[in-house]
C-alpha cells in the first residue's frame, strides 16, 4: 500500500511541476535523469537479479528510438503508439538475443551483448530510409492538450514510464520469478538441479529488460528532433545503465533508482559546469570505487550503518 501511495504522490508532483515550473531546462535535464532511472531499472532485472552483465543497453534503446522515428516518418503515429511499438520490437530483440546468447556465462555473455550493439549500429548506418549514417531530422507535432510545451509532455511521459518500470521491477523481485533469478545468480547449477527453469527465466528477464529499454528509447527522436546512429547506439548508455545499479545496489529495486537519480543528476551538473569528458570520467571513477569498496552499493552501506545504529 505504502509503495503504491508513494507512486501516486510522485506522479502528482511531476504533473504539478509540469504545470507550474516555467524554466524549460529543468525538464530537459529531468528527462535525461528519468531516462536513466528506466534504463538502470531495466538493466537490473537481468544484471542485478540474475547476475548477467548486459553491455547491450544501446542496442535495445537504439532499436526503440529508431522504431519510434521510422514509424513517425512513415505514418506520423502518435507518441503512445511509437512507445508501444518500440517496446514490442526491443522485447522481440531481447527474446531472440537472449535465446541465442543466454546459454553463455559471465564475460562471454557480456561480450556477445557488445556485439549486438555494433551489429545494430551497422545495420542502421546502412539503412537509407532511416537516414543512414547522417541521420534523420524530425519535426515535432504540436503538444497534446493539456500540455503547453512538448518537452514538458515528454517529461511527464518519461516519469510515468519510470514509475511503471519500477513497479514492474518490484513485482518481479517479489514474485517467484525474482526468486528464481536470484537462485541463478547464486548458483546456476544448483538452481537447475532444484527444478528452476533457468533458461526460460533468463530469457524472460532479458525480454522484459529489453522491452523497457526500447520503450525508454522511443521518445528520444522527439526529444532531440533528430536521430543518428553513432550517438543513438553509443556505449555511454550501457555505462550509465550498468553503473547506476552498481552504485545504488543491485539486489533491490530501489538500488538502481537511487543510483540513477544520484549519478545522472551529478552527470548533468558536471556536463553543464565542467565538460562532457569530465562527466564520463566521474562515472568511470565512481563505478570502480563502488565495485571495489562497496560491493553492495549505497543500499548495502545504508544497511550496515542501520545495523550499527540499532546495536
Amino acid at each position, binding site marked *: 500500500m505504502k509503495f503504491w501511495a508513494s507512486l501516486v504522490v510522485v506522479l502528482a508532483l511531476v504533473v504539478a511541476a509540469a504545470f507550474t515550473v516555467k524554466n524549460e531546462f529543468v525538464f530537459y535535464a529531468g528527462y535525461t535523469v528519468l531516462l536513466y532511472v528506466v534504463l538502470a531499472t531495466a538493466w537490473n532485472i537481468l544484471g542485478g537479479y540474475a547476475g548477467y552483465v548486459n553491455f547491450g543497453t544501446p542496442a535495445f534503446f537504439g532499436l526503440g528510438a529508431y522504431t519510434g522515428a521510422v514509424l513517425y516518418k512513415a505514418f506520423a503515429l502518435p507518441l503512445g503508439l511509437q512507445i508501444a511499438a518500440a517496446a514490442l520490437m526491443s522485447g522481440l530483440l531481447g527474446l531472440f538475443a537472449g535465446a541465442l546468447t543466454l546459454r553463455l556465462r559471465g564475460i562471454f555473455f557480456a561480450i556477445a551483448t557488445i556485439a549486438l550493439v555494433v551489429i545494430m549500429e551497422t545495420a542502421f548506418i546502412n539503412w537509407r530510409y532511416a537516414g543512414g549514417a547522417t541521420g534523420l531530422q524530425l519535426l515535432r507535432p504540436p503538444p497534446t492538450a493539456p500540455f503547453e510545451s512538448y518537452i514538458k509532455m515528454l517529461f511527464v511521459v518519461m516519469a510515468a514510464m519510470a514509475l511503471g518500470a519500477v513497479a514492474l521491477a518490484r513485482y518481479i523481485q517479489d514474485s517467484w520469478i525474482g526468486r528464481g533469478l536470484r537462485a541463478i545468480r547464486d548458483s546456476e547449477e544448483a538452481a537447475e538441479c532444484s527444478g528452476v527453469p533457468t533458461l526460460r527465466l533468463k530469457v524472460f528477464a532479458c525480454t522484459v529488460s529489453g522491452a523497457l529499454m526500447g520503450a525508454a528509447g522511443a521518445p528520444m527522436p522527439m526529444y532531440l528532433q533528430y536521430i543518428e546512429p553513432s550517438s543513438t547506439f553509443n556505449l555511454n548508455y550501457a555505462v550509465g545503465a550498468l553503473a547506476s545499479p552498481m552504485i545504488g545496489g543491485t539486489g533491490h529495486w530501489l538500488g538502481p533508482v537511487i543510483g540513477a537519480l544520484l549519478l545522472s543528476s551529478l552527470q548533468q551538473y558536471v556536463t553543464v559546469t565542467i565538460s562532457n569528458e569530465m562527466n564520463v570520467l566521474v562515472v*568511470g571513477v565512481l563505478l570502480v570505487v563502488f565495485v571495489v569498496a562497496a560491493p553492495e552499493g549505497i543500499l548495502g552501506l545504508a544497511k550496515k550503518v542501520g545495523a550499527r545504529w540499532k546495536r
Partner: protein
Amino acid sequence: MLPLDLLFEGVLFGILLGAFYAAVSMGLSVSFGLLDVPHVAHPAIMVFGSYCTFVLARMGLDPIVAGVLLMAPFFLLGMLVYRFYYEAFERRGAEAGVRGIAFFFGLALIIEVGLILAFGVDQRLVEAAYIGQSLRFGDIRIPMRTLAVFGVAVVLTVLLSLYLAKTFTGRAIKAVAQDEPALRLMGADPVRIKQWAFGIATAVSALAGAMLIIIGPVEPAMDRLYIGRTFAVVVLGGLGSMTGTIAAGLILGISESIVLIHPALGASWAPAVSFALLLLVLAIRPQGLFGR
C-alpha cells in the same frame, strides 16, 4: 561474386591485416584466455600504449623502438593492475563475476577519458621512414607500414609462443591455466605466476599499441572497436592457444578485408564482421578452433 584479382588482393591484404589482429590479441589471449581475467580494458591499455608511442616518437624515437622500450614500464603496470584485481576481487572469491567485469569496464572508461583530457579527441599519428611509402607488385601497391607491422607481428607472435612453450615460467603460466590447485600442491604460488603473466600480457599490449599507431591514426575512443576484434580472435582461437590466436587473426583479417573490398558491402559493413564472427563462434562452437 568477386572478380578473381579483387579476391586475390583481398586475401593478400587480409593476411597482412590478420597478422596484425593476431598480434593485438596476443596480450588478451594470455590475460583472458589463460588467466580467465575478464580483461575488457585490454584494448584501452593498448590505445594508451599507442599514445605513449606517439609521445616518444615526437621526441625523435622510431615508433617500433619506442614500442619495445615501453614494454618494461607496461610490464610493471600490468603486474600492478593484476595485484589490485586479485586483492579486490579474486581473493574475496565467488561473486567476482559481475563486479570484476564492471571494474575493467570502468578502468577502460578512465583510460579513455584520461587520453581525451590529455590529448584531445583528434586523431594522432606517427612519422617514420617506412610510413607513407609503398611497394608495387604489378597492379597491387602494398604500403610499407603494413609490411613493417607484419614483420613485428610475426616476430612477437613467434617469441611469445616460444616463451610459453619452452621456458620454465612460460610452462608455469600454462600450468596455472590448466590446474591451479595442482600447482599449489607442487609448492608454487599461482598468484605470483599470474601476476607475472599479466605483466607479460600488458607488455605485449604496449608493442601492439605501437603497431596500432603505425598502421593508422589513433583516437582515444578506438578501444571500443577493438573490444570486438580482440575478443573475437581470442574466443575463435580457443582461449589461450597461440596457434589458435594466429589462425583466428588471419580468419578475421581476411574476412574483414574481403568485406571491405567487396563493391556491394564496403567500409560501412566492416566493423560488424568481427562481432558477427564472434556471435557465430559463441553460438556454434564456444570452445573455439583450438579449444583447451
